[in-house]
C-alpha cells in the first residue's frame, strides 16, 4: 500500500467525514488517494479559510476538524487558522505535504520548514519519514488533538513518503510516553472545595471554554442550581450555562456585562471552571475578585496560578470533577432557595445597572445592540452564531444571550478577524440541522469572503449579517477614547458594495433599512437553502460599552460616553 493510501485509510478509521483544503504539488499523491475514498473533500479558496472551517467544525462537533494544504505557501497560509485554533484549545489535525526527503534543506521549490513555523502554535507536530510510520502518526495526531486540553496537531508528510509502497499495518492504539491526558481526580480536593462552597456567603460560579470542551454544562448547571449561586462566564464560556436562566449574570471582562463585572468584585468565593484568567476577562490580575477565595478546576495544570493566584486547584476533566463536586455538596447541604441575601443583592445590582447608558436604547434605529437583540428574537435557541472580531462581536457578547452549549463560536484567544464566515461554514458542516448565522464586521468579512464560494458550492444556507460601519470600528473606538481622536488607518471608502459582492458569488445579497426589514430578511435567510448576505448599514460612531480599558480594573469601567456614566 502507498503512504498516501495509508493516510486516507487511517483517516477513515478515525471516522473523518470531511477534509477542508486545497491541493498542490506536494500533496497530490494524498489527493489522488482521496479520489477513491468516501471522505468528502471540501475545496476552500484559501488555506486560512480551510483552517478556520476545520476549527469551527471541531468546536461544534467536539471531533478534530481536518484541513489540508500543500507545502510552502499552502502551509504558511494555514498559520493564522492554526494559531487561532491553538489559542482557543480547538481540536484540529492539519495535514501538509512536504517536499521529498532528498530535496530537504536545499531550498527546493515550495519548501518551507513548516514544523519550525508551526511548533509554537500547535499542540504537537509529527513528520513521518517512512510510509510505514503513517498509521501510527495519524492515530497519534487525533489522539493528541482531541484529548486533554485539545489543540491543533500538524502532520507534515514528505511527498516521497506519500509515494512509498510498503507493507502497512494499522495499530489499534498508540502509546505516547510524555503525554498523560487524563488524571485521577483527587477526591480530597473535591471535599475541600465542597466545604468551601457550602460555607460561602457570596459564592459565584465562573465558567469558561473548558466546560464546552469537557461537555460539562449539565453538572455545571446542576451545581449552580443546588447552590443557587450566580453564574458568570468568560467570552468563550458563553452558553456553557444557559443565559436565560435567572442565575446567569453573563460574561465578565473588557466588554462584559456590567452586572457581572460588578458582582464578581463582591463575591467571597469564586469557583472557576475551565478558564485561564486571561487579561481580557479579569483586567488587572491583582484587583480581580479581591475579596474572594478562588477554587480553580482545569484539565491543564499549567493554568493554575499562571495569571491569578488561587486558593485551591483541582486537576481533572471538568465533567468528572463537577459531578463529584455536586455529590459532595449535596451530601453537606440541602438545595438552597432563591430567598437569600446574596441573590437579593444581585437583583439590586441588576436594577442599578439597568440605568447605564450602554443598556438604554441607543439613538438610531439600526444600531449594533438592537440588531443583536433582534437576532436573538428571530433565531431558534439551537441556532449557532459565529462572529468576526470587533465591535459587532462585543455587542453580541453583551446583548446576545446564548442558550445552548456549542452554539456560540468566536475567536477570543487570538481575536482573528476573518474567522466568522469560515466558522459558519464549518459549523454548518458539523450541524446541518440547525440555522447558522455569522455576525460580522465589514473589515473582518472581507478578510475571508471567499468562503462564500465554498458555501455556494455545498448549498450551505449560512447567513452573514454584516454590520457595515465603513470603518475598523473597534479600532476607531480606541482611537476615539484613548488616542484623542487622532484617527489613522481605520476608515474605508464606500467599498465593497456587499450586495454586489454577494451576487458575484451567486449569493443573495440584501441591504436593510429598518429593524423590521432586518427581522424579515433574517427569517428568510435561515429558512432558505442557500447562503445569504444581509448588510446592515450602521454608524461608525456608536461605541461599545461597558468598556474596561486595557490593564485597568473593574472600578475603572466606562459605562458610556456621557458624564452620567461616572455614577455607576
Amino acid at each position, binding site marked *: 500500500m502507498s503512504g498516501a493510501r495509508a493516510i486516507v485509510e487511517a483517516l477513515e478509521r478515525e471516522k473523518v467525514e470531511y477534509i477542508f483544503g486545497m491541493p498542490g504539488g506536494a500533496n497530490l499523491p494524498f489527493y489522488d488517494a482521496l479520489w477513491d475514498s468516501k471522505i468528502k473533500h471540501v475545496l476552500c479558496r484559501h488555506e486560512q479559510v480551510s483552517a478556520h472551517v476545520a476549527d469551527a467544525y471541531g468546536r461544534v462537533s467536539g471531533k478534530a476538524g481536518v484541513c489540508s494544504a500543500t507545502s510552502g505557501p499552502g502551509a504558511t497560509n494555514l498559520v493564522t487558522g492554526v494559531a487561532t485554533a491553538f489559542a482557543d484549545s480547538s481540536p484540529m489535525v492539519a495535514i501538509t505535504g512536504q517536499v521529498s526527503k532528498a530535496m530537504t534543506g536545499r531550498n527546493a521549490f515550495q519548501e518551507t520548514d513548516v514544523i519550525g513555523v508551526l511548533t509554537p502554535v500547535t499542540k504537537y507536530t509529527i513528520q513521518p519519514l517512512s510510509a510505514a510510520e503513517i498509521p501510527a502518526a495519524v492515530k497519534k495526531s487525533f489522539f493528541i488533538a482531541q484529548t486533554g486540553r485539545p489543540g491543533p496537531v500538524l502532520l507534515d508528510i514528505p511527498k516521497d513518503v506519500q509515494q512509498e509502497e510498503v507493507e502497512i499495518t494499522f495499530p489499534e492504539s498508540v502509546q505516547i510516553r*510524555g503525554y498523560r491526558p487524563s488524571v485521577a481526580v483527587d477526591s480530597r480536593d473535591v471535599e475541600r472545595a465542597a466545604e468551601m462552597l457550602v460555607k460561602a456567603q457570596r459564592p459565584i460560579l465562573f465558567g469558561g471554554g473548558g466546560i464546552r470542551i469537557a461537555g460539562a454544562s449539565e453538572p455545571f448547571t446542576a451545581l449552580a442550581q443546588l447552590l443557587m449561586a450566580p453564574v458568570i462566564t468568560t467570552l468563550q464560556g458563553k452558553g456553557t450555562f444557559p443565559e436565560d436562566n435567572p442565575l446567569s449574570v453573563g460574561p465578565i471582562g473588557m466588554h462584559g456585562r456590567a452586572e457581572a463585572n460588578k458582582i464578581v468584585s463582591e463575591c467571597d468565593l469564586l469557583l472557576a471552571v475551565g478558564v485561564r484568567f486571561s487579561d481580557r476577562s479579569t483586567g488587572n490580575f491583582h484587583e480581580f475578585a479581591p475579596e474572594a477565595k478562588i477554587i480553580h478546576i482545569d484539565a491543564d495544570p499549567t493554568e493554575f496560578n499562571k495569571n491569578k493566584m488561587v486558593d485551591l486547584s483541582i486537576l481533572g476533566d471538568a465533567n468528572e470533577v463537577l459531578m463529584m463536586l455536586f455529590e459532595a455538596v449535596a451530601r453537606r447541604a440541602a438545595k438552597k432557595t432563591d430567598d437569600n441575601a446574596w441573590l437579593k443583592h444581585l437583583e439590586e445590582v441588576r436594577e442599578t445597572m439597568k440605568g447605564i447608558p450602554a443598556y438604554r436604547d441607543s439613538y438610531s434605529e439600526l444600531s449594533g445592540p438592537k440588531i443583536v437583540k433582534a437576532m436573538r428574537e428571530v433565531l431558534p435557541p439551537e441556532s449557532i452564531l459565529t462572529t468576526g472580531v470587533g465591535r459587532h462581536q462585543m455587542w453580541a457578547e453583551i446583548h446576545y444571550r446564548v442558550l445552548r452549549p456549542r452554539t456560540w463560536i468566536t475567536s477570543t484567544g487570538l481575536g482573528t478577524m476573518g474567522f466568522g464566515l469560515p466558522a459558519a461554514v464549518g459549523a454548518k458542516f458539523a450541524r446541518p440541522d440547525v440555522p447558522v448565522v455569522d455576525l460580522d464586521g465589514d473589515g473582518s468579512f472581507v478578510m475571508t469572503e471567499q468562503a462564500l464560494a465554498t458555501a455556494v458550492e455545498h448549498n450551505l444556507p449560512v447567513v452573514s449579517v454584516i454590520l457595515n460601519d465603513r470603518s475598523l470600528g473597534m479600532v476607531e473606538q480606541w482611537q476615539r477614547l484613548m488616542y484623542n481622536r487622532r484617527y489613522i488607518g481605520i476608515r474605508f471608502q464606500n467599498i465593497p458594495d456587499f450586495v454586489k459582492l454577494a451576487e458575484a458569488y451567486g449569493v443573495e445579497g440584501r441591504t436593510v433599512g429598518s429593524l423590521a426589514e432586518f427581522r424579515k430578511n433574517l427569517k428568510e435567510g435561515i429558512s432558505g437553502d442557500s447562503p445569504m448576505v444581509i448588510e446592515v448599514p450602521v454608524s461608525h460612531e456608536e461605541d461599545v460599552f461597558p468598556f474596561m480599558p486595557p490593564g485597568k480594573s473593574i472600578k475603572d469601567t466606562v459605562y458610556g460616553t456621557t458624564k452620567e456614566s461616572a455614577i455607576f
Partner: protein
Amino acid sequence: MRSNKVLSVLVENKPGALFRVVHIVRLMRLNIEGLTLGVTNGGEECRMTITVSGDEAAVEHVARQLMKVIDVLEAHTYGPEEMDSRELALVKINTDRVSLAEVQRNHSARIVDSSAHSAVVEVVGSAQQIDDFVSGLGSANVLDIARTGVAALPKEVQR
C-alpha cells in the same frame, strides 16, 4: 529576583525535542548560558541541563510549560544546594608565559595535549571552580576556552 537555578529536562530521544524545549526558553526571553545533553536510559531518553540567566519567576514558568510539551518526560528546576553539578573545560594556555608544571602544581588540571607554544588542559569541577581556575591563570595567559556547560542531577532521587 534573578534565578540561580538550572533546568533539568528529561525528554524522549527523538529529533526536534531540543527545538521544542528551546522554543519555550526563548519565549520567556531567557538567555541560555550553558546547555548539556546526552542520551540516557538505554538510548530512549535524553537528559538536558540548561543554565539560564533571567528572572526566577520566568524560569519556574518555563519549567511548568515544559511539562506540557509532549516529548518532555520530566522538567524541574534545581538551586545550587539541591543538585550535584559538574562542568568540564578545555583551556588552551600560552606556555611561553606560564609553565605547565606550575599550572599542574596549583590545580587539578590534566594535560590533554601540548605543543611548542601552547597546551590544552582539562579541568573538571563546579562552574565556580572553573571560573577560579581561569582567573587564576590570568587572562593574558589563556588563549582559548571551551566549556561544556553544567551537567547536574538532583541530590534526592525524586522530588
